[in-house]
């Protein structure tokens, strides 16, 4: 039995401790917004926040997140969509949509660190998140738009 905090709630799961967090979220806690794409931290579809930092849930064993605070796509805009989610909607970023939880989680983490990333910084932060539909141009546009909403004053120094 391992306890972790998922989207602000304490959850106890009975699973083998090498089980990746991804399958704990999906199959044990029924949080299917976090996606399986590769199982090798190659595509980022499973990106969640662990203690506020973006991590790949598909290679993160349960034992490594005991007692840790996890935020998933279901958690970030539970009350009201975040500016990143709003920007994603307004720019119609999603096509098939499967990778978009990972894209949004990665973009949200980026904007926490850097409130006005340029294209090169966006590419550096987002290149781990694969979209086979090719939504990348709108991902860039939505991140710029969200940055503007979140801190209209401009780039921090």
């Amino acid at each position, binding site marked *: 039995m391992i306890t972790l905090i998922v989207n602000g709630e304490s959850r106890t799961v009975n699973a083998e401790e090498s089980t990746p967090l991804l399958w704990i979220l999906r*199959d044990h806690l029924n949080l299917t917004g976090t996606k399986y794409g590769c199982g090798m931290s190659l595509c980022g579809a499973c990106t969640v926040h662990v203690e506020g930092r973006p991590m790949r849930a598909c290679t993160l064993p349960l034992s490594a997140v005991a007692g840790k605070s996890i935020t998933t796509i279901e958690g970030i805009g539970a009350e009201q969509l975040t500016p990143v989610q709003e920007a994603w909607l307004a720019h119609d970023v999603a*096509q098939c949509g499967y990778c978009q939880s990972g894209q949004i989680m990665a973009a949200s983490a980026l904007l926490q660190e850097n409130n006005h990333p340029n294209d090169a910084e966006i590419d550096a932060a987002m290149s781990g998140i694969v979209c086979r539909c*090719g939504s990348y*141009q709108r991902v860039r546009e939505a991140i710029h738009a969200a940055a503007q909403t979140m801190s209209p004053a401009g780039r921090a120094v």
Partner: protein
Amino acid sequence: MNRGKMAKGVSRRGFIIGSGASVGSLLLGVSVAGTARAKLAQVQPKQLNTFLRIDPDNTITLMMNQSEFGNGAYTSLTMMVAEELDANWDDIQLETAPTSPEYYSPIFGEYLTAGSITTAGAWIQLRTAGAQARSMFVDAAAQKWQTAPSELTTRDSHVIWQAGKREASYGDLLATIIAHDIAPPAEVALKEASDFKILGKPRLRHEGRSKVDGSAIFGIDVKLPNMLYGSVARCPVYGGKVAHYDDKAALAITGVVKTKQISAGVVVLAKDYWTAKRGRDALEIQWDEGPNAALSSARFYEEYRLLADQPGMLAENIGDAQSVIANSDSPLEAIYEMPYLAHATMEPMNATAQVSQDSCEVWVGTQYQSNDQEIVAKLLGLPQDQVIINRTLMGGTFGRRASKTADFTVDAVEAARGEEVPVQVIWSREEDIRGAHYRPLFVHKLRACLDDQGMPLAWHQTAVGQSIMQHTKHDPAYMVSGMDIYSIDGCLQEPFGVFPYGTHYTIPNHRIETHNAPKVGVRPHEWRAVAHTHTGIAYECFLDELAHAGDKDPLDLRIALSKNHPRMQNLLKVLKEKSQWETSLGENRARGIAARVYSVSPIAQAVEITLHGDGKFSVDRVICVVDCGFAVNPLNIEAQIQGGIALGLNAVANGNIDLEAGRIMQSNFHDYLPLRINQMPVIEVHIIDSDQPPTGVGEQATTPIAPAVANAIFKATGQRIRSFPLSKHGFTLV
């Protein structure tokens, strides 16, 4: 979230596939016309026609018979209904139409979303459904208010009688429709384009909200009570069988429930997917690898090259290309080679099934549910209508989820057969990459010559590869005298078989031959834009070679050769202007161009690349002009163009599946490299203004990008690449 209970024999249920709180819930037992007439006080939902149902609370339900996998079908088709129905957009929700013939594609005659013809196929059908329903509400209001229908207007799901100062919502008029037995009119007038309020205007995705908050339900997200998860051990050689297996170690893992042999190999069932996969990895299996264990891509290239030298089946013979080339002093000749490609959708293949004695229910992201239903019914010996297919959203497909064998659905059904509970089988990424449905490997041999003005005079092309359609149920429609349209579409100057278009070029002597390579080793399958993914490269790169040999500008040459295709000629002139074709890009930079007609729609792209040394290159900008008739949803067209370019660019730069000793060498995203955001060019999309009926745009953009990039690399380096991907030749997309 209520995901519903299993119920036997319920034939009209499916996912609510719209946005909002009901996403993923199941709709149970829909009442249809004739059952509710007596109870006006409690008006029941009413099926107005095949596609539309309305509830007293004004909810309009569109029975959606096309799949959503990023293509935008849910939005574009809803726009058609909303426009003609004068409905409030937010009132419309979607429900998966049942797998029955009234919902089959009017073009395919099957329940299938494919071929970039969704918009064209629905254009009249769904607008008519909307207009019919609107007419019924107007008639109902006229009866209720004792006035003439011509006095009434409609707006935002309401009928309005301005002179009589009355207004009623569609939901409120439902009781009148039922009481007066108002039937759909036999004929209705559709709006003129000048009256459109919704069609032709940018519209955000209908299911968009569910794709930003994690609530969208893909096949892999289906959860049913007591469901088990399955993971399959598959023979590393396609077509191989289990000789013997030992499951002691697998069964010793806590949570593993059982193992069983299915057609695809051995499936391990467990309480969660990770445990099932651990169980699968613990199996000890001896395989009978079968006859494919010696096959390799290298051998296929050799065999195909030899075949390309032999006379093939003659698909087109305009003029006398052979003699003209034979008599030429300086004929040109080249061989172009394209590898197998995997679809590698972000959501790996999966399906969920529950099988009982007399019925079967499946939950799957599929493009092709009539085929899934037919195959499952045969497999289980059930009447076809006892197989219920609940279609989910799809995490990409690019053609993969229109499986002719229903392979991933069959996995789940075989795994669930004999179980009391539903079973979900999920393919790992490795199984998905090695899943043996590929864009077939192709070799094209091309010969040509120029006239004394440097213009193409004769063209002779021989295409060699595995036929996709031969010996399938599509054989009669897609094979012409043994030739597969899906091997040569994009080479032919004239319409051929069921395809009502040829290339846009006119070359006076034009000969196209084809060989069907032996159908062994893997399963050739449609991959976004199908034949154009190889014919497009061969044709457009070799044409570039001819332009160079004849000292012609490659864009001007294409404009001249398109003299009998006014739409393309106009489009190319627009591209010339928008791309500032005649300006200089400076050192280490170059442009390339290609143009194609696919599924009727002309499209052309100009690319700008930069060389960064050591074989590194970037594609900085792509200017794309498309003529897809009336632009139903410009926002979605732009997305489809961006996406098509991304997939095509990825394929030409890095796409490669190798077969060696019967085994696929690639396995995951470290060796089958996907395009990443840093490699994404800036894409400018220009849509030609048109009042023609809409034609496809889902696959069109995938094909010009590959030859355009290869042509730009030639321009920049003088190196003509004729086998793909570019990475084989030391070129790295950055």
